[in-house]
Structures are given as C-alpha cells and as structure tokens.
C-alpha cells in the first residue's frame, strides 16, 4: 500500500537526516521525499511517499509524529489532495525523429527546455501516472538521463489548513 505523508517540521539543521534516519533504522520504505520551506520560514514542509501494510503505515505515522522536530503529520488522501511531480528527461534524438518527439511533448503539455544536435531535455509536471505514461511513450527513444523531484502535494480546500501562529 502506498501512502503520502505531509509533515510540517521545525526548520532546524539536521531535521531531514533525523527523519530519513528514522525511516532507514526502522526499515521503512521511502519511495520519494521532498522538502521545502513553507510560507513561514520557521517551518519546512516535507512530503514523503511511503509504502507498507496497514500496521507498518500506522507505526510510521506514530514514530515520525513522535520526533521532537515534527510539528504536524497527516496523510494526504488521494481523493481530496492534489499531487505534482516535476521530471526532466534528456533524450537522444537527431533530425530524423525530432518532430515526432515534439508532437508527443505537445500532447503531454511538456516543454522543451534544451536542445542540441543530438539531444533534447524535456520538462514535465504532473501527477505520477501522467509522468509514468510520458516515460512509457518515450520508450522508442534512447533516454540518456532522468531527474525526478518526487511528489509534492496539498490537500484541497481551506479545511484542515494548519495555521502556524506560535
């Protein structure tokens, strides 16, 4: 089972290693982890995609929630949250196939951000299924490099927003 956790943590040095260290020493999986400052610079928002059975996922939530630096932890449910990931893909492509590739990129609303005689870098933002579908479409090309950011997510609507006053 895959689960997306959203953490609001104190923006202190070493906080990311404390969280990732907990995952590694207790043998929990991290599919992806992203971190960035929130509107309030004292806090960092971390989005972790993890997996496990129900018991493990419950333990993950409790153990992570217990860390002194963690202000808030909640599950981002797929039905009421939005997720986005950014991917950069470098494809080997010459004159002969460039046009077809550009049309695939248009269908996926991706942008071409670098181009050379024999390669192209494509930028795409979307949820993971869109990104996977795009990569699948590129299977006829030689992919030189991929850089994925891991997902960031937010719950929809104004309910359940965490206000950080103190």
């Amino acid at each position, binding site marked *: 089972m895959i689960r997306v956790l959203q953490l609001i*943590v*104190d923006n202190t*040095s*070493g906080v990311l*290693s*404390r969280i990732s*260290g*907990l995952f590694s*020493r207790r043998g929990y999986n991290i599919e992806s982890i992203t971190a960035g400052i929130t509107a309030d610079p*004292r806090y960092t928002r971390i989005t972790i995609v993890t997996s496990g059975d129900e*018991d493990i996922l*419950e*333990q993950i939530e*409790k*153990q992570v*929630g*217990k860390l*002194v*630096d*963690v*202000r808030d932890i909640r599950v981002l449910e797929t039905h009421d949250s939005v997720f986005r990931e950014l991917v950069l893909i470098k494809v080997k492509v010459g004159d002969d196939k460039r046009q077809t590739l550009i049309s695939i990129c248009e269908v996926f609303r991706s942008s071409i951000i670098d181009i050379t005689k024999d390669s192209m870098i494509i930028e795409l933002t979307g949820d993971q299924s869109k990104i996977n579908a795009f990569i699948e479409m590129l299977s006829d090309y030689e992919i030189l490099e991929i850089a994925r950011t891991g997902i960031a997510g937010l719950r929809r609507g104004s309910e359940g927003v965490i206000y*950080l006053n*103190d």
Partner: protein
Amino acid sequence: MIGADAIVKCLEKEGVTTLFGYPGVAICPFFNSILETKIETILVRSEQNAAHAASGYARVSGKVGVCVATSGPGATNLITGIATAYADSIPLICITGQVDSKLLGSDVFQEADVTGACESFVKYSYLIKDVSDIPRVMKEAFHIASTGRKGPVLIDIPIDIQNRQITGFKYPDSVHMRTYKPTVKGHAMQIGKIGKALEKSRKPVILAGGGVILSGARKNLHDFSHKYGIPVVSTMMGIGVLPGDDPLYYGMIGNNGRSYANLAMKESDLLIVIGARIADRAISSPDLVAKNTVLIHIDVDPAEIGKNVGPTIPIVGDIKSIFEDLAGISAKCDFSEWIKTLDGYRRKEPSRKKPRRKYVDPAGFISILSDKMDDNAVYVADVGQNQMWSCSYYKAKKGRFLTSGGMGTMGYSVPAAIGAKKADKRLQVVAVCGDGSFQMSMNELATMMQHKIPVKIIVFNNGYLGLVREYQHNTYNANYSMVSLSGGPDLACIAEAYGIPFIRITDNTGMEDKIDEFLKEKGAGLMECMLDPLDTVK
C-alpha cells in the same frame, strides 16, 4: 560570563547538585567553570560509566541525571551508556565537549560527530553553534528529557562556544517549543471504558512495566488494584511496582518469569497493560495475547500502543495522571474466584531445584539477601545469569530494583549503584553482578573510594559468561566458545588493592550471618560468591 559559565548556571537553575563525568581538553572550559559552583562532580574511570551512574542517579532521585564527557573518544565511549538509558526511558542530560566550531567536519584531533552517531539513541540532540542559544537549549533539553516518554538528550558544545562571551544571560522561566507537546492527560472517554470493561470481565490482569515506576505511580497502582482486587504481574522493568509479598502480586512474566504469572496473563479475559512495551522477551508471541482478551494499553508513548499488539482500548497519557482520573470511576466487580484460581497456580509452582552443596546457591542467596536488606534499599542487578536469578528471587519491599532491561548492558550495576547511592546516601545500595559483568566496570571501585560512595558489591563467580555458556550448552551441544573467564583476577587482591573490605563465601553454610555481617559494615564492601560453574538459570 562565558558560554561555559552559562551552562553551569543553567544546571544550577535546574537544581542539579551532582554530575558524573570525565574531562578532556574540549570540555575543560566547562570543568573550569563548575568549580565556581556547589555542584558536586564525580570523576568516573570510563565515560560509559558516567552515563550509567547518571542513570542510577536519575532512577533513584526522580530527577534528570547529568553526565559530561569530552569530544571524540570521550563522546563515543559515552554512547553505550546513552543507548542503555534510551532503551529504558531514563531521563539524562549528556553534555559533550566538541572541537572548535570553525574546524567542525575537518577531522581534526578528537573530533567525532557525536550528534550524528547518537541519532538513534537519544530523544533529541543539540549541537550548539551560537553561545546565545545556551539558555534556551538547556531549558528545552531538561524539558524534553523529563516529560512524555523520558529519555536521554545530548548537548554537544564546541570549545570556542564554551569560551565565547555571552551577554544578557537569562534562564527562561518556561519552555516554549512549537513542535514538542507530549500528551499528559488521558482521554476521559477512554478512561471511562475501563470501568465497563472491568464489570464485564471475570479474569482481569494488570501487566505493569517500568513506566509505572518512571511516572511515580507505584502507590496509585497499589490503590487501584486493591480497590477492585485485580491481580498484578510485571515485566522485568516493572519489578518492585508492588512488594513481593503483596497478595495481589503474581511476579514477573516472560521466559524467565514465574509460570503462574504467564498463566494469569494467558487465561485473562481482560489485560490492562500499563507502562509496558509488550516486548519480545516478555511475551514470546504477542499474537497469543490479543486473540480472546480485551486489551487495554496505557502508555505515555503513542507509538508503543499497537506496535506489538493491537489494543481494544488505547489510552495515551502520563500514567500517574491516568490513575488519578481512574480513581474517579466506579465499577462493581468481584474477582475472588479468579484470585483463588491464581493462588492455586501459585501453590503448584514447582519448588526450585535442589541447591548444589559444594557451592553457593544463587537462588537461596538472593532471597536471603533481599530479606535482610533494608525495606527501602536499592538492589541493582547486572546482566547475565545473575540478572535472571535476581529477577526470579529478589523479594521487593519498598525499595527499588534497577537493571538494564531493554539494552541488557553488561557492567551496568556497579556504576548505576554508585549513581543511586549519590542520589540518596541514606539508602542501602547493593549491586549484584557476575564475574563477567563485574570485570566490565570494576575500574569504578576507584570512583567509589575516591568519592567515598559506600556501595556494596556482590559478585557471583562461576568462571564463565554463564548465560552464553548455558545458551551454547543448549544450542550448540555444549561446544563452548569464548565463554571461559579463567585468568582471574583474585578478587581478594582486587579488594585489597582498593582498600575495600572483602568476604568470599564458598558454600551455603552460615550464609545468613555472613550476609548480615556484610550489610552491617558501614563502608563499601565486596563479596564474592563461588557458584557452580555449570549452574543454570532454569
């Protein structure tokens, strides 16, 4: 005022009167500043024992224990002690000196990334890089160590920060942490459910762990169990929650526990687990408990609840506070039939095997010893066969039973006993260890003598690492590997070298008188009991 003065001032403000430590250059500013105060400093002989001593001190005083070491090897030596305290949820402040902050990360002499190394053994850690952070960090550290599920907090302070001037020092009156807010009060509705569960139950059992002692709720447990007549069993860390002769106390559970304690748990229809982890050594197969039993799990750490077994009624909060709320509920129940059944089991417990004539019988020795000890004495058990015997035959009264439960750290008893004695010098403190565990910390005899800390030490000598030998006997068909402890030392000579009175007993004749004599002697004492090398726990 420099940073080191500020740290010392903070310790004073927190009411610290004693600390255990070992110096080195990187912590010298601190040890220089401490001379200006009344805080007593105990020089141990190895840093690990500073943490163990602070642990014994914390457990007996109910305050936070403090230990201090230097950077590099001083800090890394401390780690086993920190991990030991962490496993048993003992509140400690561990202060380590660190190399100059400008040199951090450049592998200079005696640099070790101790905050990184301790990451998984501390409740929290700080590396102070700004001298003005000292008051806040110290305040937070004491707060974190002593609230919620207690535990060690590490503060690493580079030498230049200790030497830097600090202006406008003010120790905060209160702690303000945005992220750390442990639950104290139990959920009222959940607590209410306990009454109903009791009324429905015919065979309830309370399993009490170390958390009951840590939250200072021994009397509350006594009152609650006696109000309804609920039998109580304990984990190893819970030994002493009720006196051994309390009719409602049915002993320690687990592989090395009492068979009737395990039976009580197995047959119960309502199990109330309080401040215990339901760990592997206590319950070999946690699934067995949950099947037909209503399980109430009370713990201050939400992550312990449901970790090993899924409870029917989880309650998170401080145990003492929850007991206070529990006193307000009422339930009509009568468990006298159940008690009769359990008393029947207790009577049927096979008497322990026949003592071996030519040697000291550890079981008999420990029961006489604990009989003769003061009512409020502290008994510190080490790790190994001696620990199993101590758990089985120590008779709790009003005193304390200390041991390294979670980590099982050999060598814990002597330094922890030193700390316990420092916490309250009126208390009789006895450390009981094996010849293996004694040799891991016998260097601390010097600490005892230097600082005049009269602890009684009893060494069970069987010339083996007995518990491992027993395991190899059973598992590897007596193919012994690395377990013989031949090679001495002669403890009479050791005792003489340190100037400690010494008694050796070789069999059971006149044991009572010898124990009496040993305990009555005013100062420190070392007693060696010669055991059958092949004696076993079971």
